[in-house]
């Protein structure tokens, strides 16, 4: 997590630059106090980094909103996995 822009002392937001694994990067602005809380609890919860904490939290929320994957597509992808019939 890299800090950009205003510092915490000013009580403004912080830019979070998250490196995406494949397709570049994107920035999200979060409240500085929230970033501090994330930083503190990420380690306690067992995450390897604050970014991982944020990603997990967002993915959990998105899973509630996104549609399930196409059934046939899922079956096709599993085809040939040696451990299954």
């Amino acid at each position: 997590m890299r800090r950009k822009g205003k510092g915490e002392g000013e009580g403004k937001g912080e830019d979070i630059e998250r490196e995406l694994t494949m397709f570049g990067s994107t920035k999200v602005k979060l409240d500085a106090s929230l970033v501090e809380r994330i930083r503190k609890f990420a380690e306690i919860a067992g995450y390897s980094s604050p970014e991982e904490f944020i990603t997990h939290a967002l993915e959990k929320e998105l899973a509630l909103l996104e549609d399930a994957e196409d059934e046939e597509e899922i079956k096709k992808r599993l085809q040939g996995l040696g451990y299954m019939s």
Partner: protein
Amino acid sequence: MTTTRHAQRWNGVWVAAAIILLLVGAPTTADAYIGPGAGFAVLGSFAVIFVTMILAGVSILAWPFRTVWRMIRHRSKSRPLIKRTIFIGFDGQDARITERMMAEGKLPNYSKLAERGCYRQLRTTFPSITPVAWSSFSTGTNPGRHNIFDFLDRDPRTYLPRLSSAHIGSVEKFLKLGKLRIPLKKPDIRLLRKSKPWWTILGEQNIWSTIIRVPITFPPDQFYGAQLGAMCIPDLLGTQGTFLLFTTRPESQAFQEGGMRIPLNRNGSATSFEASIKGPENAFFEGNPPMELPLTVDVDRSASTARVDINGTEIELKTGELSDWVKLDFKVIPGMKVSGLTRVMLTEADDHVSLYMSPINIEPGKPAMPISHPSYYSSYFEKKIGPYATLGLAEDTWALNEKVTDDGTFWIQTQDVDDEREQMLDIALEKLRSGALVTVFDATDRVNHMYWRYIEDGHPAAAGIDDPAHADAIEKQYIRNDGIIGRVLTKINDDDVLFVLSDHGCTSFRRGVNLNAWLQEEGYLTLKDDADGTEPWLQSVDWSKTRAYAVGLVGIFLNIRGREAHGIVDPGGEADALKTEIMAKLAGLKDAEKGDIAINEAFDTDVLYRGPYKGNAPDLLIGYNHGYRISWDCAGGVVAGAVFEDNVKAWSGDHIVDPRLVPGIMLCNHDVTSDDPHIVDLAPTVLTLFGVRPPAHMDGSPLLNESSLK
């Protein structure tokens, strides 16, 4: 007049320039499975040449500054205790077999390494399966922190299984040009293994790592180093490995999962046949029609040979002999193609003609999906060693299970993949001046799985043994591994640390257990009124009356209200009581027909795991006894049938059992500090060796330190 002539001359120049531009800029092989359109590629090519020339000039001028900057930037911030750490992984190498063979003097290099340093059994993860154990190796964490609990996860919205390690999305945005749809972005491909692998942490300290075929590295990690991906890289069809059988035989019974039967039709004579190879779906056209290649087979029955023509490439085949890699180029649109690799074998050329084609691997020279980091690393190896297998589970176990191939062919497939891997190891080891290197060999696991029936009297699958010459296949594989270690020992120095390890062992798979059938018998799972339980993927289940179900290979889920789409068990007290009740019934569950204990114990994963992802795990993990495993039917979501059944498939050994029964192995050229190491200890060990303090989220403890290296 002059103006017209002038204009004509300029028109001619423009036409000539356009022709030159088209020739120079004409796209060659496109390396995008689903990528930008051909028009973009044409325009882009000229720009690329122009920009490249400018960049080349700038690059030469800036070279001294870049060299200095690189030296500053890549200066390691840590104080390494050693120069190189090398891990050689043999997936599935069993501790009991290894120890017996060492005692018998059959593994002299293992013994030499043990004498010089140490040999230990290596505790594995719960469950003891490849994706879970290697993820713990990579991250130094228990599954609750890396999120891989099984080969499969389940979608609580649909109860359907899905791959646990990678998400491969589809393209949703297109630019429509008549019949053509140009994808506007690449599909979303994400690695679902969480936490942070140790090579990423080393990279943050400017320490290089080369990671070759460590399971669960698709898509590859981005870090300071190089990586060739492994387990769960799909084939070109997007599956985990689908073989094709082209045959004149009428379709009697469809293959269960691993293969497709394709009619081989007569082509004007009794010796000439034709068919079509259906390749990957073409996202550039509505409905994603498959790309196809023509195939013809001309047989000479008297000589048991055939000449196979695939889209103009001719191959001479003799019955029962596997070809070398054959490249298949599927045309996407003019100027763009997607390439795969396959191996073919004429399996019969008598009254009927049949041709086996292995799963079509993603071609590593121009991969259709991200299979390495940097992206050109896969093509680097292709240039060095030629074409090689890229599929996650590269050895075709299903063709052998379905008796399309035989034990001899499978042996060749596994050994050839091992040969490719050893060449990669040699190249990487020679190149590595400092840093870490991991190479994982898969053949041991596959050989254990497929040849176990040869070493166990009375195995139900022993009736299918087709060639006694393979009775010692498992031993031959372990001896081969010993040879690899012998060669590595000649290439390492005193300031290198070498680890040889396996992620788990192997045991017999004589009997399958249909957990869903057991759950139904015990009243925890109910079928729909009109269903008989034979439908796959749990489609027979009445979720409004079901409290527990099995999906995947390792455990049981409760049908929790608010978590599952049609959950009926309240989280908290009711769920805890139900877990306790099922665990009590499963502990010591007996297979009445054989008189053996089938399940030693069921484990509460809420107790077993720590970390933010443990809620994704099955609620119960099943600790099968030697000889037992989840049945083939249950793994496919079929409820019907007996709870216990014989396993008669060639896949006759397994390790999806009580993890305490199948430890892995670990050898090191130094004596380690622990008598009872766990696979999770290796990540903090390698960090310590390079002077990097293991982060707090890691569960393991270092096995070596400054004093133990002296």
